[in-house]
């Protein structure tokens, strides 16, 4: 392996890119699917996952035995560039693939992986996340929902909220307080998977700003979860979840391909509008930031391939992509002038989605606190 700095891809990686591009050209629906935050759109996106999975394009970085292609990080980046450049649909399986699957790879049993991952890869089982509770938003240590030991498993009781995808998903994963007597609030939490259609589960869809049920409240009343659906050791959920949260904020939640494609569309929109000089700065800055995000990710991936652990850089990443996503869409809406307020266009749909970015997956305020403490070494302060 050569050590030299190199931004080109190997012939084999370029072959992989060509194969992905050819497949996408042949398969990507010519018109956007209906919004995945509707029943109809959810079904259409699930079908799309099955189509991807049929040719092993749904989870390229996973091992082949679970439906992937064993593609490394670089090929994953290449795939994502092609995927979004092709204008392919949003990924309804994102919660499971980005959040739960990495946890199972690190902390699950082989039995769990063999049982859970293949139907996740095909979209047969779509996962919702169930982190937040009404009194625990940024402060996950304040979780109160309980898991009580019972024969052969656990009984879950409590309330979860902002559970994304839960309005239409099949199953969910989250943290539950299994031991209320531990000294610290981070102890005594257990990481569990459960069925959203199990007895005792009530799902109340919540509409996001445009009314679409992008998430739900979950009311749990003595919901039985068998032992086989506990991930890792009971009581160790916090530590396990933190490694997932690292993934969530890290390399694989928002791929550069997504923002490069979006910046390209913004450039086209600007040109269609007659390339007004007054908007040139906003468009140029968005293009530059998308490129910066791509190169930052390439550098992080290279360090990862060199065996370096990726740490609090994920906080830099989170703030950057969430602000970039918003800037891309705000620039587009402003370019559209009075027509910018029309709902249902890819730009206004994307805008509503982007608005949530600085809030979820750890608010940007929390991320800045982490950067200040862990990367800059500043005193902790009372925030």
């Amino acid at each position, binding site marked *: 392996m050569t050590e030299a700095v190199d931004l080109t891809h190997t012939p084999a990686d370029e072959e992989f890119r060509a194969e992905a591009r050819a497949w996408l050209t042949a398969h990507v629906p010519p018109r956007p699917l209906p919004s995945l935050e509707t029943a109809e759109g959810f079904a259409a996106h699930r079908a799309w996952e099955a189509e991807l999975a049929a040719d092993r394009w749904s989870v390229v970085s996973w091992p082949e035995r679970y439906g992937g292609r064993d593609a490394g990080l670089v090929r994953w980046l290449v795939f994502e560039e092609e995927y979004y450049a092709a204008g392919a649909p949003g990924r309804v399986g994102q919660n499971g693939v980005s959040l739960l699957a990495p946890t199972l790879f690190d902390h699950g049993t082989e039995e769990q992986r063999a049982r859970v991952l293949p139907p996740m890869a095909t979209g047969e089982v779509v996962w919702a996340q169930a982190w937040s509770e009404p009194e625990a938003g940024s402060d996950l240590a304040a979780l109160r929902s309980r898991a009580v030991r019972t024969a052969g498993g656990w009984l879950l009781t409590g309330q979860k909220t902002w559970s994304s995808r839960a309005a239409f998903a099949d199953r969910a994963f989250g943290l539950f307080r299994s031991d209320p007597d531990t000294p610290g609030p981070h102890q005594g939490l257990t990481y569990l998977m459960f069925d959203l259609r199990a007895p005792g589960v009530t799902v109340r869809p919540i*509409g996001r700003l445009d009314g679409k049920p992008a998430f739900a409240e979950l009311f749990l009343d003595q919901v039985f979860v068998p032992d086989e659906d506990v991930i890792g050791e009971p009581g160790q959920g916090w530590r396990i979840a933190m490694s997932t949260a690292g993934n969530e904020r890290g390399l694989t939640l928002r791929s550069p391909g997504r923002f490069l494609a979006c910046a390209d569309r913004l450039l086209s929109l600007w040109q269609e509008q007659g390339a007004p000089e007054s908007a040139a700065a906003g468009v140029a800055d968005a293009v530059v930031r998308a490129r910066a995000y791509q190169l930052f990710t390439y550098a992080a991936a290279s360090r990862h391939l060199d065996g370096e652990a990726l740490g609090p850089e994920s906080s830099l990443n989170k703030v950057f992509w969430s602000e970039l996503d918003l800037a891309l869409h705000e620039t587009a809406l402003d370019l559209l*002038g009075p027509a910018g307020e029309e709902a249902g266009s890819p730009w206004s749909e994307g805008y509503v989605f982007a608005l949530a970015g600085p809030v979820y997956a750890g608010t940007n305020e929390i991320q800045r606190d982490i950067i200040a403490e862990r990367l800059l070494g500043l005193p902790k302060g009372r925030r």
Partner: protein
Amino acid sequence: MRFLLDTGQRDFASALRALLAAADTPRVVRDWSRGEHASGRALWGRIAEAGVFGLAVPEEYGGAGRRPVELAVAFVELGRYAVPGPSVETVAAAVLLGERADLAKRFLPELASGSAMATVTMSFARHGYGLALDGDAAQVRLAATPEGLRLSPGAGAVRRSLDPARRLTPLPPVGELVGAEPAWAEALLWARLATAAQALGVGLALLDRTVAYVKQRTQFGVPIGSFQAVRHRLADVRIALEFARPLVFGAAVTMSPADVAAAKLSACEAGYAAARAALQLHGAIGYTAEYDLSLWLTKARALRGAWGAPEECRRVVLGRP
């Protein structure tokens, strides 16, 4: 020089505020968003009774004469309570119709009294304002085009806005031609002033609600309003709103195109900054349609583009064509 509202104007604002505070406007907004207009029309009638829709109508047609300062006072309150309906457009229509005695006589009394709502499109201005707000609810639908002023017999199918309470409708290019040279520039000025005032009111409401929220919401054991990042962000919103306010009332006093454009630009920027801060500091709950904050959040975004997007306002400020 005395750049302060007089007693009458302050009393007018208080009366309007009392009326709106008692009206449960969030419920009215939600009805309106579903196309159920009954509660909105009832509220409209009460607002008209308070004199709001006569503020761009000469006295001989049942109005109070053209009173831009009072209009700005009123629209701040309409924004503060997220009142739905084509209020800005009714003002613009009154200005357009007021230019010809026959039209004024025919339409202005019912606009001033609140018995009719009006909406309007304009294809003169640079970007064009091609969709009529609430064409399904308005009885008077005007299209100001280079060919003349047209009375549209009906509106096309409703298109959704990012603000569910803003129902956008195309006006088909048919109907009675009622005037050759519509006073579109004057009408645009009034629409822009009213929108600026409305955006200021929206921003003030968003700031108030967010300040109240961060005082009671606790995380990490303390109210989030004690975090300096939260405090400073809200301080910046307050600054933006406090400096947009004199631009809005100054524009109402001078009615110069540059002042009105400056007011529209600043009030919409401040309102949008308030919305972004409100969403960020509320967190997920602010992102939900069922929580009332959403009624103001989405309006702050929509008003940015209405009757003069930022770039268009900047062009006017710089005196460019």
